[in-house]
């Protein structure tokens, strides 16, 4: 073994030659210039500009990744939509509830990497949150009434699932179709793929999960405040994301598309609240009616 002094000292080339003479059978490695030749070729191929070999490799890899089309019936096709990490999901969720500074969710957060993990699990969590919170709020509203029989209403889970998943998939489909149709008529610089629209809609539903949990408390003012707050946040993120895509269009078309987006959002929120969460006041009126009718 070489002494430590030699390990840190710069060895001149004569020593290597001496070592080779002593031990002819030793395995030697010769690093030739072949390795640098393909790098140089790659650096010159895209535009002829002198770049780092690393960035040109990245670019060629990215370009080849977009050209590669995996058939949609293979497992790998869906695996490319799950190519995210924990901090990506966290950033996207936080970005979906924060419409300031004014930005485009797709450009800032998705960056050509839409994922299906976030939308799917946010929708599932929302379905169960609505069902469970609705159940708890019904229980709390009717607490203490003698003729109330507590039933865990499992049918409502399926209804909630249908409503939320159809909102998260059919509305993006319709919006994508509309944008495609308008793109044929008016050449717009911004175009979104279907997966990106699904991703935005999925993450925009994330704000409703804490709002739905807040609806357990049977105070109407609290429910309406949280609905309005959640609507403003998620609606503004959606509108700001799709504004660049429809900006070059007729003002009437632009306003109608954006207002439809906002309106559907409002419908979903208010509909869920009305169907799953009962109001406390009418129950009190009905018991007072019973009291007056019995006397």
């Amino acid at each position, binding site marked *: 073994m070489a002494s430590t002094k030699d390990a840190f000292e710069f060895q001149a080339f004569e020593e290597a030659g001496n070592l080779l003479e*002593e*031990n002819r059978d030793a395995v030697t490695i010769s690093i030739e210039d072949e390795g640098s030749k393909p790098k140089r070729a790659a650096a010159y191929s895209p535009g002829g500009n002198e770049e780092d070999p690393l960035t040109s490799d990245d670019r060629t890899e990215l370009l080849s990744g977009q050209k590669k089309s995996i058939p949609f019936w293979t*497992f790998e096709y*869906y*695996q490319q*939509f*799950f190519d*995210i*990490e*924990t*901090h990506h*999901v966290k950033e996207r969720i936080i970005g979906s509830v924060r419409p300031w500074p004014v930005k485009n969710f797709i450009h800032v957060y998705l960056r050509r990497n839409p994922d299906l*993990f976030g939308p799917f*699990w946010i929708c*599932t*969590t929302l379905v*169960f949150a609505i069902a*469970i919170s609705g*159940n708890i709020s019904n229980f709390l509203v009717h607490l203490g009434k003698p003729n109330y*029989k*507590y*039933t*865990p*209403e*499992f*049918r409502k889970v399926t209804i909630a699932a249908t409503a939320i998943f159809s909102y998260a998939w059919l509305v993006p489909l319709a919006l994508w179709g509309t944008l495609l149709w308008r793109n044929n008529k008016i050449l717009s610089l911004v175009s979104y793929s279907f997966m990106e629209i699904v991703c935005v809609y999925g993450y925009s539903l994330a704000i409703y999960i804490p709002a739905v949990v807040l609806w357990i408390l049977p105070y109407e003012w609290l429910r309406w405040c949280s609905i309005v707050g959640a609507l403003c946040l998620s609606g503004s993120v959606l509108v700001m994301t799709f504004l660049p895509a429809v900006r070059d269009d007729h003002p009437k078309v632009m306003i109608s598309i954006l207002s439809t987006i906002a309106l559907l959002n409002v419908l979903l929120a208010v509909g869920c609240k009305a169907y799953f969460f009962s109001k406390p006041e009418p129950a009190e009126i009905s018991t007072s009616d019973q009291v007056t009718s019995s006397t």
Partner: protein
Amino acid sequence: MASAEEASRPFAGLSDVSISEDIPVEGDISVPMSSSRRDDEFSTLDEPVKETILRDLRAVGNKFIHVLYPKRSSALLRDWDLWGPLLLCVTLALLLQGGAADSDDQGGPQFAEVFVIIWFGSIIITLNSKLLGGTISFFQSLCVLGYCIMPLTAAMAVCRIVLVGGTGTVSFAVRLVVVTASFGWSTFASTAFLADSQPPNRKALVVYPVFLFYFVIGWMILTFSPSQ
């Protein structure tokens, strides 16, 4: 250099050994066992049925013990089986019956609903972990998720016993504590087995669906109310 010479000395004699290419290597490959014994080792067709069943039951019981004391062992993963999850699922679904289900159609979950939730939920979680690049196989993951329902099934049995005593606030508090503890135990046990198969920057993405799954099952157990 001297040490190199010393190292080569035991092998010095081998440099003379050479096998020329025209001598065929021949011999007789025979296992020094009687042929009937070799058959018995691999075929279980002739054994009595009781022994077959007992062997599977012992494997299932062994895995139950592994869930009770979740260490990072690979016993649950290596020989997976779906008998245990099936037993637990049927037990849980049966225990969730008889809960105001006859009088009202919105009483408790139907037998089929419990099955669908458990199996469909397990399949979706397994697909999720495989899409995120997990190294665990499909049935191994189903096996782990199914076996880790065991604490929740035990909690359901305890809840039914507590509900015999009454449905007041005390019984609700006891049930809440029992269900919360068993839900935590289930989640901890399953992540002890599943978390190793994922890269470290995606562990939370795999653990969250498991958390949601056991939370929903725990909710079903907690809200079970018997018919009066």
